[in-house]
């Protein structure tokens, strides 16, 4: 119905009719809606056809992903992750088995470290002599002072110079 040139003030009959129609609609429409079986209508609707007509690409193009990402609280997600459970499920031995040790030695400084540290029989002999020397030093120190009756005082002696070794605390 086209808009009338007449205003409700100048057309009281039209206004009255409109009010009547409004009142009728308010009563009739709920009755009609209640009478309608929505489920039956839905069963007749072919959703696949509707979906196939939807252009998803256009919808996706309109989505601003950056804004969505900005609203994601990563900290809260991370807090909820149980890292310990993830670690327990990782098979470290399987990972280690996959490591190519030869390539690791060739391509990293590990090779030079191993070369420096594994220098053969002479180094092994030296290591043994040094460690045995330490043992012998302890023995001589302990028994020498025991002979002069200073066995207990040894415990209070400093292990090394103050710049190299933390001084012992005195126990009272």
């Amino acid at each position, binding site marked *: 119905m086209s808009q009338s040139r007449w205003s409700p003030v100048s057309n009281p009959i039209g206004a009255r009719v409109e009010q009547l129609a409004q009142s009728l609609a308010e009563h009739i429409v709920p009755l009609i809606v209640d009478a309608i079986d929505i489920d039956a209508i839905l069963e007749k609707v072919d959703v696949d056809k509707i979906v196939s007509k939807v252009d998803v690409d256009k919808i996706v193009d309109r989505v601003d992903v950056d804004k969505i990402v900005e609203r994601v609280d990563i900290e809260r997600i991370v807090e909820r992750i149980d890292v310990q459970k993830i670690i327990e499920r990782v098979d470290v031995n399987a990972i280690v088995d996959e490591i190519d040790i030869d390539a690791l030695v060739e391509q990293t400084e590990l090779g030079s470290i191993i070369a420096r540290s594994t220098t053969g029989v002479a180094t092994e002999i030296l290591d043994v002599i040094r460690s045995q020397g330490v043992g012998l030093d302890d023995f001589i120190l302990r028994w020498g002072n025991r002979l002069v009756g200073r066995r207990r005082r040894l415990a209070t002696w*400093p292990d090394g*110079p103050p710049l190299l070794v933390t001084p012992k605390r005195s126990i009272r």
Partner: protein
Amino acid sequence: MTTVPVPAPEMTVGRQGHYAGAASRLVAFAADVGAAWGLYTLGVALLNAAVKLITGHSFALSNHQGIAFLVLTVWEFFYFTYQWAVSGKTLGMALFGLQVVTRRGGPISGRQAALRTIGLAFTLFITLGIGFLGIVFQRERRGLNDLIAGTAVVYDWDARAARLRWIARKERPLHRGQHGPGTEAKRA
């Protein structure tokens, strides 16, 4: 594969910077005496050969006792003083993992190195070694030569590297290249 067991940590890593004891120092000193004497003998032999080559006359320093003694004394003084001044350790001490430091643990000076060498000669020849008893009975394991120079001797060897070497040489139950049970099917 070696069968030397891995020494306990307190015998290796835990001793770095600690005062060295009598046995280690004696062995290092013996090595130094041997090295110094060996180098002196070599030097004298080279000198004799050089003099003979240049003058055509045979020469033996040992025929000139006074000069030989003087040369030996100067050489021994230089051997110990120079090495202590430069790095705090002589050849023998480097071999057995020892180092001379100040009483507080810092690097020693050239003056201290010279004083220590003189103190060493004094302790050895004048006190006939009695001054070395301080290494066993003195609180900071310092002999008379250390007391004169204001120095101390500590363990300095890279015990951590040694421990890694021992661990690396230890036989493992599963060598690299072998696989545990259940993995053969996956690798086939």
